[in-house]
């Protein structure tokens, strides 16, 4: 089943009752440790997240905010390699019911070799990949190869894009689209407002794919907003912050407030 169909199914099952948006969460592979990751994923599973990004740590995470930068760096310092990330992904995709997406920077793919990387990703049970520093103009070959493996490239749409560009992105996108709620890097909170709603509407005009909204999602009201205007809420930094504050307990608290009805 394709990612897009999976999400359509999820959406249908969800109905309108419990919560308004599907959820995509994020862990940085090996930070603080793979054991921590696993426990965090168990909590996420409890709360029924539909998608999880596993970030492959990179030494130059220039699109990330301070918390993820530190997480990337710590994981590398702790000796986390690409092979470890794939091994972990395989365990995760075998065990959990949510779908797993690789997130990282293009050099990880490039250096591993596109084909080798995609093959391993497929074998590890990944569904898609998000590479924020690989613009669509540079991604042609990778996307074709991915298609052969049935892997979806997740593209980002941003408030600064022209309509023309949004259309170009839509044409290349598969699975779903990651709409960036604001300028800046991951981390600080976003004001979910009319501007954002209009930006999402602009995106919607170019694609039928589900729309995820990311960057700074941290509150119940954010989820409600995204449920109303888009499809998937991306929860990144806020969850890691909770984990750092108190592991599974705090993370559970965080998801409880986020998903309470």
């Amino acid at each position, binding site marked *: 089943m394709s990612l897009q169909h999976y999400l359509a199914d999820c959406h249908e099952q969800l109905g309108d009752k419990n919560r308004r948006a599907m959820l995509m969460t994020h862990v940085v592979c090996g930070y603080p440790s793979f054991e921590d990751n696993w426990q965090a994923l168990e909590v996420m599973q409890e709360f029924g997240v539909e998608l999880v990004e596993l970030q492959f*740590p*990179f*030494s*130059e*995470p*220039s*699109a990330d*905010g*301070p918390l993820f*930068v*530190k997480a990337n*760096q710590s994981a*590398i310092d702790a000796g986390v*390699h*690409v092979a470890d990330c794939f091994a972990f992904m395989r365990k995760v995709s075998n065990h959990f019911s949510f779908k797993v997406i690789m997130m990282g*920077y*293009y*050099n*990880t793919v*490039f*250096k*591993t070799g596109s084909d080798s990387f995609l093959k391993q990703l497929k074998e590890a049970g990944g569904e898609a990949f998000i590479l*924020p*520093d*690989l*613009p*669509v*103009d*540079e991604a042609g070959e990778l996307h074709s190869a991915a298609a052969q493996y049935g892997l979806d490239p997740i*593209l*980002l*749409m*941003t*408030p*600064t*894009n*022209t309509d023309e*560009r949004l259309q170009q*992105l839509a044409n290349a996108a598969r699975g779903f689209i990651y709409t*960036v709620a604001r*300028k*800046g*890097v991951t981390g600080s909170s976003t004001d979910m407002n009319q501007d954002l709603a209009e930006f999402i509407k602009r995106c919607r005009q170019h694609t039928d794919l589900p729309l995820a909204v990311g960057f700074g999602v941290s509150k119940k009201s954010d989820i409600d907003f995204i449920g109303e205007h888009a499809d998937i809420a991306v929860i990144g930094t806020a969850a890691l912050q909770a984990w750092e504050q108190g592991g599974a307990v705090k993370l559970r608290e965080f998801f409880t407030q986020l998903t309470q009805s």
Partner: protein
Amino acid sequence: MDLFDFENGREGYYGEYGGTFLPEILHTTIEQLKTEFRKAKQDPAFWQEFVSLMQSYSGRPTPVSPLPNLSAKLGGAQIYIKREDLNHTGSHKINNVMGQGLLVKRMGKSRVIAETGAGQHGYATATMAARFGFESKIYMGAVDVARQRPNVFWMENMGSEVVPVTDGQQTLKDAINECLRDWVTNMDNTHYVLGTACGPHPFPEMVSWFQSIIGHEAREQILTAAGKLPDRIYACVGGGSNAIGIFQGFMEDTEVELIGCEAGGFGPGQGNHAARLAYKDASVGVAQGMKTYFLQNDDGNMLETHSVAAGLDYIGVNPILVNLWEKNRVRFEAVTDQEVTEALKLSMRLEGVIPALESAHGFAQAIKEATQMQPNEVILINMSGRGDKDIFTIADALDDQHWKQFISEKAAGYRGGES
């Protein structure tokens, strides 16, 4: 050979290298920059404005000086140096920065950001920002802030905010990442003044264009001074801007050998140096906005690098130079810290010139090769900057005891409350 005709249809690519690898949110910004840059490049009045600004503000043309004593001592080729050290702010970095300043004005932006490693580019940017009336923020690895405090002092006094970057290795590459983070947030009013011929297109082309002023001047000057074209040209290569700057004056002169001199640090071996091409420790990757050779491990994560010269201590390299290297148009060599220190001493003693530690890499390689050349052959070295602002680093490199004592006494004075 026009380096920038992109005849293969891939704008911003030099052979396999270059490109624009940036977060989508910067797409519009970078397109706008490309457009403005293209317009400026096609407008002869823009270049004229640039040249006359550099004349009146920075003292261009910088001269070519012969080094008769060093040449005589080595007994080989006649050595000349292109004096970028005589620029305002003390290095070639000002060429690029003032050029970008003019572009910023055209784009109507009011704020600039810049990364800096050695501090020279930050110093130049702070200067430019003061002169153009821009708000400015300079990102600098915390390690570099510590080793280059004098530059920080001047940047702050010229009104720039200097932000120590504590991520990663806390050096140049991390400062670049931090600039990108600022830029994705503030692109509306902010231009990122990248300091070397690296990063996403159009930066390599743009920085190269502004730095080509070095090569154009130098060709005419060396013809006058030496009566012939140089047989070899040496330039240190950090990001690669001063090298491509001088080399561009001689692209058509195939008989002129071009030599890029990288930071050999402690010598070959991962982590010991910052030589991307001369040693065998680097491989092709994509980071910091471009595809080029990087000092990285098998996972594509960047290695630690080392050089006595902060400005050469960088993981990546100018994609244009990589292409020229593959085409055998530019030879790459690495020079160790120790060879650099020796070259520095020689040039101070024999000629009364103090090259920056970066530039001294070019001197060192030239010194090695000059002895094997004939007295009727000519060497031109790009002296990209002056060393007197590196006093803390150079004093440490030379392990100067008087200096250490002076610093200790100064510190004691501060503790005692005098100033």
